[in-house]
C-alpha cells in the first residue's frame, strides 16, 4: 500500500502538470472543462500505479473487466453516435498517453533519483519565463509542481535523517500524505489573484497606529482638553471653541446604496437652546419626530406633484459602523425612519439614543430629497399646512405599520412642540435687526428668507482658529453681533449657530445639528473625524425639516438629476419557469439505465469468470507443487488470515517472537505451523507430508478461530444494542 501511494504521489502531479501544460489542455479546456480533465488525469495515474503494484493475475483481471465494460458501453451506443463520440473524445486517449509517459518517467526516476531534477528544473525555468512575460499558469499546474517539489524534498530529508525505527522511505512518505493533502486542499481553496499584493493590511495597520498617535497628540493640542473633540471632531455640549484640532482618523465606517459623490449629512445630536457660548439640548420629548416629519414631507409632495413623487423622494440605505468612538448617539440623515436594524434606540427630542455608549453597528433607511429638482422651490414655498387627505395618502403610500398609527392631531401636536422649542426669539440687537431687515427685504416666504440668510455668510471668512469668544459674548444677540460685525471669522459651528438664531428671529423654527458631512463612495468607506460638521435645520410649515448648511466651503450636494433610471418603488415580477414535457424525463432515465446496466452485467460476468478461472489455476498449481511448494503456498494463506485478524509481524521481530506475541491472542495450537516454517527458512529442512498436513490444520483452525472471534464480536455488539436503553 505504501509503495502504491508513493507511486501515486509522484505520478499524479507530473501527469497533472503535463496534461495541463500540453496542447490537450490548451485546445480542449473550454470544451471539456477543468474538473473532468483533473478527474480523468488522476484516474489514469492511479490506474497505472495500481497496475504496477498488483500481481499478474490482478492485471489480467483488471484489464479484462475494464475492456469488457468499455466494450459493452461502446456497443450499447447507436452506430452513428459511436463515431461522433470517438471523434470528440479522442483527447481522452491523449490524456491517457501523457499519464502513461509520466508514470513511466517516475518508474525510471525511482531507480535513478537524479532524473527528478529534470522536471523540477524545467518547471522552474518555465515559471521564471511566466513571471518575466507576465503569464499565469493555471492553479492546477502551479500546485502540482509545488507538490512534486515538496514531496521530493521530503524524500531527501528522510534519507538524510538518522533515526531508529521503521524508516523505510516510501512508507514514511505515504504516511505523510494526509498532512500534505490537507495543505494542498487548503491551497486549492485559497484565491490567488493576478494583482500584486498591495499590502493593504499592513498599510491599514500603520494608518491605525498613526491615527491613534494623532488622537493622542491632538488630545494634548486641544485648548480646552476636551477629549471628545479630540476623538470625534465635536464636543458633547456644542461649545464654541477658539480653535479646532487637526485630528484625521477613522470614526465611522459607512456603506450606502447612494451613487458616488452624493452628499450625506449624518446628524448625531440636535440642540435647541443657545446662551451665547454653548448650545444645550432641552427637548426630551419621546414624540416620533422622524416619522411625523417623513409623513408631512411626503404629504406635501403628494399634494403638489403626486405623479412625480419619486423625482423628489428616493429611498436610500446607509450602514453605519462606529469604530473610532464609543457613543450612544445614532447618526442619521434627514428623513430617516426611526427604526434601525441592529439596535433599539430611544427617541429623545428628535434624536435617537442608545441605552449605552458603544461601538454600534446599524442600518438606516431614509428618504433622499432632491433639492436640485426645479419643483423643489415650488413645494417649499407652497403655503399652508398639509391637508388630511394628503396626510392619509402619505400614510398609505409608506405602507409601514409604524406610520399608520399617526393622525392629524398628532401632526398638530408635533407642530406645536416644534414652535415651542425651536422658535425661541433670540433677542437681536437693534443693529442686527436693521441688518436683517435690509437683507431680507422682499422675501415673502420662509424658504426665500432662509436662502437669503445663507447668502449673508459669504462675507464671513472660514477659519479653524477664530479665537476664543470675548467675555462680553454671553447671549445670542451678543454672539451674532460679534460674529457678523466684529470677528467675521469662524468655523461651521459659528455659521450654523448664527443661521439658527437668524432663522428663529424671523419666526422660522430652526435647530443646530452636529454630525458628519461627507460625499459617498462606492463600497464600504471610512469617515474620519475631519468630516465632523455642524449645520442647521429649519422647519418649513407644510413641508417639514430641511438641511441648510451656512458654511460656504462645506455645502454638500444631496440632489440628483432626473434620469428616469429607477423609481423609489421599483416593481418587478419574477419570470416563470417553463413547464417540462410530461413523461419525457422518465423515458430518458429508463434509456440511460438500460445503457449502463448491460455493460456492467457483462463486466461482472467477466470478473466472475476470471475469479473462477483463477481459483482453478491456483488449485492445479497447488496440486502439482511438491511438499515445500505446498508449504510455501499454505504459509502465505495462513499469514493472510492472521493479518486479517490484526496480527502482523512487527519491525525487526523474529518469527518466534511473533509467534509468542500472537499466542497471547490466538490459541497456540493455531500457530504451530510457524515453528515448522522457521525450520524451512533457517535450517533448510526438507518438508514432508506431515508438515503440509500441519499447515492445512493450522489453516483450518485459523479460519475457525477467525469465524469464532467475529461471531463473538457480533454477539457482543448485539448484546450491547439489546441492553442499551435508547429512551432518554
Amino acid at each position, binding site marked *: 500500500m505504501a509503495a502504491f501511494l508513493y507511486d501515486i504521489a509522484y505520478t499524479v502531479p507530473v501527469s497533472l502538470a503535463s496534461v495541463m501544460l500540453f496542447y490537450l489542455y490548451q485546445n480542449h479546456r473550454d470544451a471539456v472543462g477543468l474538473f473532468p480533465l483533473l478527474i480523468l488525469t488522476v484516474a489514469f495515474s492511479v490506474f497505472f500505479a495500481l497496475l504496477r503494484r498488483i500481481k499478474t493475475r490482478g492485471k489480467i483481471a483488471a484489464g479484462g473487466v475494464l475492456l469488457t465494460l468499455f466494450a459493452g458501453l461502446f456497443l450499447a451506443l447507436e452506430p452513428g453516435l459511436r463515431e461522433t463520440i470517438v471523434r470528440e473524445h479522442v483527447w481522452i486517449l491523449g490524456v491517457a498517453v501523457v499519464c502513461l509517459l509520466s508514470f513511466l518517467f517516475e518508474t525510471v526516476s525511482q531507480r535513478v533519483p537524479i532524473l527528478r531534477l529534470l522536471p523540477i528544473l524545467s518547471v522552474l525555468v518555465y515559471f521564471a519565463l511566466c*513571471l518575466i512575460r507576465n503569464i499565469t499558469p493555471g492553479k492546477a499546474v502551479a500546485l502540482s509542481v509545488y507538490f512534486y517539489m515538496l514531496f521530493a524534498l521530503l524524500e531527501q*530529508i528522510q534519507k538524510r535523517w538518522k533515526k531508529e*525505527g521503521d524508516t523505510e522511505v516510501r512508507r514514511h512518505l505515504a504516511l505523510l500524505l494526509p498532512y500534505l493533502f490537507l495543505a494542498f486542499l487548503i491551497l486549492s481553496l485559497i484565491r490567488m489573484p493576478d494583482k500584486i499584493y498591495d499590502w493593504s493590511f499592513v498599510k491599514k495597520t500603520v494608518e491605525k497606529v498613526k491615527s491613534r498617535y494623532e488622537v493622542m497628540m491632538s488630545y494634548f493640542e486641544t485648548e480646552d482638553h476636551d477629549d471628545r473633540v479630540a476623538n470625534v471632531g465635536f464636543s458633547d455640549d456644542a461649545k464654541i471653541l477658539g480653535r479646532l484640532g487637526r485630528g484625521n482618523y477613522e470614526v465611522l465606517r459607512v456603506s450606502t446604496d447612494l451613487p458616488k459623490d452624493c452628499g450625506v449629512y449624518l446628524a448625531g445630536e440636535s440642540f435647541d437652546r443657545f446662551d451665547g457660548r454653548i448650545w444645550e439640548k432641552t427637548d426630551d420629548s419621546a414624540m416620533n419626530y422622524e416619522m411625523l416629519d417623513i409623513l408631512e414631507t411626503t404629504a406635501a409632495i403628494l399634494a403638489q406633484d403626486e405623479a412625480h413623487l419619486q423625482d423628489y423622494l428616493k429611498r436610500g440605505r446607509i450602514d453605519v459602523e462606529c469604530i473610532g468612538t464609543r457613543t450612544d448617539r445614532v447618526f442619521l440623515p434627514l428623513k430617516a425612519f426611526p427604526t434601525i436594524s441592529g439596535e433599539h434606540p430611544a427617541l429623545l427630542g428628535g434624536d435617537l439614543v442608545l441605552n449605552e455608549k458603544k461601538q454600534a453597528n446599524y442600518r438606516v433607511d431614509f428618504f433622499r430629497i432632491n433639492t436640485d429638482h426645479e419643483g423643489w422651490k415650488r413645494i417649499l414655498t407652497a403655503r399652508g399646512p398639509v391637508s388630511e387627505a394628503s396626510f392619509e395618502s402619505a400614510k398609505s403610500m409608506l405602507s409601514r405599520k409604524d406610520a399608520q398609527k399617526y393622525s392629524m392631531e398628532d401632526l398638530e401636536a408635533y407642530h406645536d412642540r416644534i414652535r415651542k422649542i425651536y422658535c425661541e426669539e433670540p433677542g437681536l440687537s437693534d443693529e442686527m435687526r436693521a441688518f436683517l431687515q435690509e437683507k431680507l427685504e422682499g422675501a415673502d416666504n420662509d424658504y426665500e428668507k432662509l436662502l437669503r440668510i445663507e447668502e449673508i455668510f459669504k462675507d464671513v471668512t472660514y477659519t479653524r482658529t477664530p479665537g476664543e469668544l470675548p467675555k462680553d459674548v454671553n447671549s445670542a444677540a451678543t454672539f451674532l453681533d460679534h460674529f457678523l460685525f466684529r470677528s467675521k471669522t469662524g468655523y461651521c459651528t459659528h455659521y450654523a449657530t448664527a443661521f439658527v438664531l437668524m432663522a428663529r428671529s424671523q419666526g422660522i423654527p430652526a435647530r443646530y445639528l452636529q454630525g458628519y458631512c461627507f460625499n459617498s463612495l462606492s463600497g464600504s468607506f471610512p469617515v474620519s473625524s475631519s468630516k465632523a460638521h455642524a449645520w442647521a435645520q429649519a422647519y418649513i410649515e407644510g413641508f417639514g425639516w430641511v438641511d441648510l448648511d451656512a458654511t460656504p466651503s462645506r455645502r454638500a450636494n444631496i440632489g440628483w438629476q432626473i434620469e428616469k433610471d429607477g423609481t423609489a418603488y421599483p416593481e418587478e415580477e419574477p419570470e416563470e419557469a417553463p413547464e417540462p414535457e410530461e413523461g419525457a424525463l422518465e423515458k430518458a432515465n429508463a434509456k440511460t439505465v438500460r445503457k449502463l446496466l448491460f455493460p456492467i452485467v457483462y463486466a461482472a460476468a467477466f470478473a466472475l469468470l476470471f475469479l473462477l478461472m483463477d481459483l482453478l489455476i491456483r488449485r492445479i498449481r497447488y496440486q502439482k507443487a511438491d511438499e515445500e511448494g505446498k508449504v510455501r503456498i499454505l504459509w502465505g494463506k495462513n499469514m493472510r488470515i492472521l493479518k486479517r485478524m490484526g496480527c502482523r509481524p512487527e519491525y525487526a521481530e523474529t518469527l518466534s517472537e511473533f509467534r509468542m506475541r500472537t499466542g497471547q491472542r490466538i490459541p497456540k495450537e493455531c500457530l504451530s505451523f510457524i515453528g515448522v516454517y522457521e525450520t524451512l527458512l533457517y535450517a533448510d529442512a526438507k518438508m514432508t507430508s506431515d508438515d503440509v498436513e500441519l499447515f492445512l490444520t493450522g489453516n483450518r483452525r485459523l479460519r475457525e478461530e477467525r469465524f469464532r472471534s467475529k461471531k463473538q464480536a457480533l454477539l457482543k455488539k448485539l448484546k450491547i444494542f439489546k441492553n442499551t436503553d435508547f429512551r432518554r
Partner: protein
Amino acid sequence: MRRNRVIFLILWILSLIGISVRGGTVTYGLFFLLSLLPVISLLYIVLVILTFKVYQRVEGREIICNRKAVFYFSLQNESPFLFSGVKAEFFSSFFTISGISDGTEYELAPKSGIRKRTDMICHYRGEYEVGIRRLIVQDYLRLFSIPYRNREPYIALVKPDIVQLNDIRNAKLMIGTMEDAAERTEPDLLSREYVNGDDVRLINWKTSAATNRLMVRERTGERQQGVGIVFEPERCSDKKEIYLPVENKILEAVIALTLYLSRQGIPVSVYFSKKETEEMHVDRENGFEELYAAASDYRFRETGTAKLLYEELLQRSVLYDKKAVFFIVNRWDAALFTLADRLSLGNVSVVVYLISDEEQEKIREHSKVKVIRIATDADLTEVM
C-alpha cells in the same frame, strides 16, 4: 534543522517579494504554501504531543542504590498518523542509563511502538523520577523541534546501598583509646561535678555537702557497653539535587557502620527521629533487616528536628552508657556540639561524620571529638 529554517525563511522572503512584484498562481502559490507549511507542521507536533505514549517499568521488586536494575521503556504511537521524529532524553544526575544514547531519534509508524531494554543505576536513595525525563518532537520538514516534559514519569523508590566496610580506622582508634584508657592507672572517679543534663537521681548529696559543690555519682568499674549511632533527621534543602546525595550518604554510612560493628560483635543502637525519638538495636544476629527497612523508608524531616533530637538525647542521657557514639550529620552546629561535649565529658568517645561537599569554614574544634568530613560522592570504604 537550522539550515532548513534558514532556507525556509529565505524562500518565504522571496515569495513575499514575489507577490509584491508579480501576482498570479506562481508567486501566490509559493507564498501561501510556505505560510501554510509551518502551521501544519505545528499542528502535526501538537497531534504527536497529545497522542504519544511512553511506558516504563523496572524489572524486579526493588531498586537498590548503585546496583544495576533492568529498565524497560516503550515508545508507542497509538494514533493513525506517522510520528516522524521523536527523541527521548534521560539525562539526570540521579541515575545512569547504559546502552541508550540520549540523542537517538525514533520514527514510529501508526499503531506501532519501539521497546527497549537497558540497565539503569540509581545513584541515590530516595524517591525520584527516573527514566525518560523529556521528549523532543520534530516535524517532518525539520523546521521545529519542541521539547516537552514526560507526562507519565516513572517514580522510583530507591533503597540505600549496603556498603561492606573492611575497617573503620577512626572508630577503632576511639575504641582502642578507650580500652587503653580503661587499662591506665587513673583511678576511677567515684563522683564528679554535676553538669547540666546529668540525671538528678545520680546526685551524690553526701559528697556534694562535703565539697560544697553539686556532685554526681559515677558507677565505679562499670564499663560502657555498645555503640550508639545518631544521624541527622533534617532535610538540608528543598532542592533534590542537594538533599538527595546528602541523605543517601547519611543513611549509607549508618547502614555500613552498623553492619560492620554488629559483625564485630559490638551491639549498636541507632537513634533517629520520627514522630518521636526512636531507637533500634542491632547485634550480630538480629535487627539489621529492620534497620535497613527503616532506613529505606525513612523520610527526612523539617528544619528544627535535629536540634530537638539532640536535646532529647541530652536529657535522656541514653548515650552515656555507650562506649562510643557516632554522629552522622550534615551540620556541625551548636546543639550537636553541646551534646558531643557532654558525652565526651562523660568519657564517651565521640566521632562526627560530617556529610558535606563544602569545606565548612568554621568547624568548631573539640579536643575529644573527632570530626571527619565525608563528601557525598565519597567511597565509604576509603573514608571511614
